[in-house]
């Protein structure tokens, strides 16, 4: 342990984003505002090992001690991976008798309408581990059949016999009245104090029994997984003399305490891309661009998020591996297209790119790790857009000849194209599919791409952003500093967030107000208590209320913000207006129903000023190189990003340690605020 007297008060804040290949860190010195970034390999067997390595490397490189770390904001895919790989413990699900199979039946609708053999995984809890409970709540919260606790003893015997490590409880209409779930849980916990129990009325108290069951089961099975990971991590931190406060990133973009993460791990399930979305939001605020389309292109996927009028779009339900997760989360559209996406010519002679990915092992052909099928990165390299000697800042040499040969052989020959034309084809097909996905994200909300700027990040984003913007008709592309660790930057600036909900279908009229007012008061008190428990001072607590509303008869709801002091008629008018914007009509005569009330409790963490420092490679003087553009090789200037002082015109390449930007002809790029580069399309006729 370092001597506290010799060290200053802890002043380092670190955002960590653990990806499949790399663990990214952004390190902020809260006193000086100095910001650094660092990448270290992920250790999939126990990600806390790579995390600690990253912290130690950062401490050495940026000259602080581990005890200087005040705040550790941690994005983790531990929950996500456990579900994707089905590394989950044995669990038992208790349901209302007669409804034990709801988890297995699901909602019917299928995605692949032509396939005779759809992909279908067995339910997370098998039929013999789903036990019926004699009880019944009605939709109005009254009990049609009371819960007889006499059935608990045989149930416990069955739970023991099944070797269950966790119990999930999801009873019908428990979102309206949780008394039976609670009584059952108390009886089980009294008899088996060490057995974790998860109630649907706690993790996802919302109407729709299948979605609530799915969320409850996911949460229950993840409790031991995430709990064990956090125990390991905290042990490693203690061993290293790290007393920093640890907070975990949730799918809603906020962070939570390790205690909350261990109790409600389903809230972490879709947190992977939320760091990027948060970072997009921070940049939208910092740069004064209220409409920003954030695109994150890494090795295997392309994630799109939308910041609209200064807020990142959210949704109330997502899914993992076709399993619904009924919890608020940032809305992200993901397509399987990244630097590692494999290009192929299929049996019908079509050039296809992705969704299969070479990943990092074996990786693209040019990595020289045994990959034989050309990937998008190979095409970028073959066309001169990537420098084989400066990939990852020169840490990894790329084999350009092998990439060219693979493209020629596997794509060019089959299509009757030369290797370079084939590589250009791979990029063109990739860029148009990226643009189509981004266009759809805006289009489905009725938004016009011309009103947006594109924010490009992720290791592979810089090479594709401008072609995508061209295709979309977006006039401006922003490249943030440290694009490859940008998600960690978002995490660094996150706040504590608790999402609370109460669901009951009621007419959205004055007769429901007493119930609504009471429920809201409870939710607010609950939110405030959670923030207090997190140690958030009162002045930094903020409670946001919203209501899920719909026209009677509709099967889905719109989430309408309900600011304090707004009367019911004004709320209804806001609903009609939102409905008209989203669905092109409103029906002011139709009765409106309230389906759920939501409170978002935010605990603002102190903001810190940021002062960026140049990364490695800043002293480099790259030389112009030959790049294949529209059917011919052209000598194109290459700039080192950190040295860029004024505007440059495309075609050009701008390199930094972990990423390369391709500036197409017809675009001009110049340094902007916050360490960004801002590229804009040169208006027709003004190109110099």
């Amino acid at each position: 342990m370092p001597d506290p007297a010799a060290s200053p008060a802890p002043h380092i804040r670190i955002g960590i984003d653990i990806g499949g290949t790399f663990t990214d860190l952004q390190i902020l010195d809260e006193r000086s505002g100095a910001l650094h970034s660092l990448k270290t390999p992920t250790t999939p067997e126990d990600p806390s090992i790579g995390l600690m390595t990253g912290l130690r490397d950062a401490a050495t490189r940026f000259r602080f001690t581990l005890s200087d770390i005040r705040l550790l904001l941690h994005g983790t895919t531990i929950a996500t991976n456990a579900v994707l790989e089905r590394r989950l413990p044995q669990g038992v699900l208790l349901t209302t008798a007669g409804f034990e199979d709801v988890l297995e039946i699901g909602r019917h609708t299928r995605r692949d309408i032509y396939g005779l053999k759809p992909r279908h995984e067995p339910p997370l809890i098998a039929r013999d581990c789903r036990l019926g409970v004699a009880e019944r709540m009605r939709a109005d919260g009254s009990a049609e059949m009371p819960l007889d606790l006499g059935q608990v003893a045989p149930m416990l015997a069955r739970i023991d016999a099944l070797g269950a490590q966790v119990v999930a409880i999801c009873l019908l209409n428990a979102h309206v009245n949780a008394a039976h779930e609670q009584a059952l849980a108390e009886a089980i916990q009294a008899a088996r104090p060490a057995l974790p129990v998860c109630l649907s009325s706690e993790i996802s108290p919302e109407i729709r029994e299948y979605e609530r069951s799915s969320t409850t089961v996911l949460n229950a099975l993840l409790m031991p997984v995430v709990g064990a990971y956090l125990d390991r991590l905290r042990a490693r931190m203690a061993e290293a003399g790290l007393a920093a406060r640890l907070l975990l990133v949730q799918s809603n973009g906020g962070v939570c305490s390790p205690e909350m993460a261990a109790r409600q791990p389903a809230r972490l399930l879709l947190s992977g891309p939320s760091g990027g979305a948060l970072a997009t939001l921070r940049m939208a605020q910092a740069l004064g661009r209220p409409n920003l389309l954030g695109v994150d292109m890494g090795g295997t996927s392309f994630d799109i998020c939308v910041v609209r009028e200064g807020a990142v779009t959210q949704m109330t339900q997502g899914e993992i591996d076709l399993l619904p997760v009924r919890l608020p989360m940032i809305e992200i559209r993901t397509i399987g297209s990244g630097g590692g996406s494999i290009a192929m010519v299929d049996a019908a002679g079509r050039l296809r790119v992705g969704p299969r990915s070479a990943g990092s092992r074996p990786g693209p052909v040019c990595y020289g790790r045994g990959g034989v099928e050309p990937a998008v990165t190979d095409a970028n390299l073959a066309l001169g857009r990537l420098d084989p000697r400066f990939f990852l800042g020169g840490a990894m040499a790329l084999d350009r000849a092998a990439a060219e040969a693979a493209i020629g052989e596997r794509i060019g020959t089959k299509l009757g194209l030369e290797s370079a034309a084939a590589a250009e084809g791979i990029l063109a097909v990739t860029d148009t599919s990226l643009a189509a996905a981004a266009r759809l994200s805006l289009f489905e909300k009725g938004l016009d791409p011309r009103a947006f700027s594109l924010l490009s990040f992720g290791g592979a984003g810089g090479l594709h952003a401008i072609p995508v913007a061209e295709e979309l008709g977006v006039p401006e592309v922003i490249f943030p500093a440290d694009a490859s660790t940008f998600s960690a930057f978002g995490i660094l600036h996150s706040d504590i967030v608790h999402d609370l909900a109460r669901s009951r279908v009621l007419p959205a009229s004055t007769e429901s107000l007493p119930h609504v007012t009471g429920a809201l008061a409870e939710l607010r008190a609950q939110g405030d208590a959670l923030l207090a428990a997190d140690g958030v001072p009162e002045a930094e607590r903020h409670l946001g209320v919203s209501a899920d509303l719909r026209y009677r008869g509709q099967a889905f709801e719109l989430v309408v913000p309900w600011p304090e002091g707004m009367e019911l008629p004004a709320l209804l008018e806001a609903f009609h207006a939102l409905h008209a914007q989203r669905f092109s009509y409103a029906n002011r005569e139709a009765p409106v129903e309230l389906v759920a009330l939501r409170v978002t409790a935010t605990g603002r963490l102190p903001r810190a000023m940021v002062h960026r420092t140049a990364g490695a490679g800043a002293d480099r003087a790259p030389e112009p190189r030959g790049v294949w553009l529209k059917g011919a090789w052209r000598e194109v200037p290459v700039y080192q990003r950190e040295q860029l002082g004024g505007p440059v015109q495309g075609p050009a390449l701008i390199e930094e340690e972990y990423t390369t930007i391709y500036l197409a002809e017809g675009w001009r790029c110049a340094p902007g605020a916050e360490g960004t580069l801002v590229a804009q399309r040169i208006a027709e006729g003004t190109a110099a």
Partner: protein
Amino acid sequence: MSTLGPVELEILRNALGAAAAEMDVTVWRTSRSTVVRELLDYSTAIFDRDGYNVAQSARIPQHLNSMSTGLLTVVREHLPLDQWQEGDVVITNDPYCGGQHIPDILAFRPVFVAGTRVAIVGTLCHHLDMGGMAAGSYAATATEIFQEGLRIPPLKLVRGGALNTDLLAMMKQNVRRPDMLWGDLQAQLASLAVGEANIRRLAERVGAEKLVEACARILDGSERAMRAMIGRIPDGRYAFEDFLDDDGITDAPIRVHAAVTVRGEEMEVDLSGCGPQALGPVNATLASSGSAVSYAIMAIADQEIPPNAGCYRPITVIAPEGSIVHARHPAPVANRIAVGHRLATTLLGALHQAVPGRVPAAYYGVSYVCSFQTIGEAGERGVLVEIEVGGTGAHADADGLSAYTYGMHNNSNIPAEMIESELPLTLTGYGLLDGSGGAGRQRGGLGLFREWRIDCPEAVFTANGERFRHAPYGLEGGEPGALGHLWLIRDGARQALGSKVNNLRLKRGDIIRLETSGGGGYGLPQDRPAALQAMDRRLRYVPG
């Protein structure tokens, strides 16, 4: 003369697909009725300038490929393309002019660039109600199409950009919810406008000629892939039959028979052995039947083939007029989906002989439609319509899926909690039916049970089922799946109902129990590995 490179062609193909997807989002965003936006009963497509579809965003297999047949019927028999002007929108819902059944309105709009027609865009929406003797234009007792609702022959709803208000007024006058009709029609018009703008932008960027060439090459590519796929199937004649229980009016079973002849790279599907058209609405027009044939053949493809009109070129369908698969005017056709399901199981049974190992045993093969009208103390009405599913057939190397939507339809169930919060109904059970999957080396998927209890003084129940007498078949020695059942449980006594129930009066406390059929098994039951048999017993998939 080919001017398009392979990369350009692929980019144009993706762009056409993206245009169909944006048209799809437009319908979803702007439609009014629950049928369209929540049951997602609509599709969008892009056709070449002659009416052959090159890209589509189909959500429901029954719609798949049927729009092109519809459009070609319209332009060949009713409204030749030289009469289509810029800014026109042509609509029809007439099953005897290229449609499927009366609730489905097809709408088409030509895309012109510099005075030349380069493509056509189209949408199909299932409308809430088109008039006729029953709400929803779905009368189980209709014996003539005139009872099924308002028929619109191919007419211009929009002429050169101007709305044909006379036609619209006439339509609105004849339906139960004119506001919904007009709302959903507007969604179709908006979708066509989005599609038109997209295609025009594409044509302006690459040139109209290249776009037209791309459409031709896309169709040729799928035709080539389809021919190659058929070429890999051994030549021969493969015949199979399956049955529909009845037409809801008479009690006789209806034969569905298909003889598939594979000759080199072509396939002939002879449906001459199908029964004569039914008195009740269990009939299909050729457009409907054609989509079931296309679905079955495309489903057995061993490689991914982009679905478009090029796929149908190597396939000939023979279906004599006056049969259940090619109904003659004025036969009623509202329940054409029943014929579609059974054609699919029949075709797949025939194709199993041609490509053994690729085809599963029969799926449940029916849209189990149950509807309740509740009547409260003060006479207030509520309506619930549910579509349930059963088990899917086993494959040569995999068990069937339990309670999984399959084949010609694709819809979701409704949460019990939603029903109970809105209507005086209580769900008293929803689960898998032990032992309902056909036994076999691979077991068929399980059907399900669902029970509704009436909590108001009175209710009216209507159902449209199948597979109550003719079970989903097994393959290669596998046993058939269990039959479907419908029960009325009143005062503790169980009473069997038929597969088709018309306006049954129910009272407080009555329970309706639906049991759906399971899927067929595959291979001999005694060959099922002991471990899997033990699993079946442990999970009670099989009783005992």
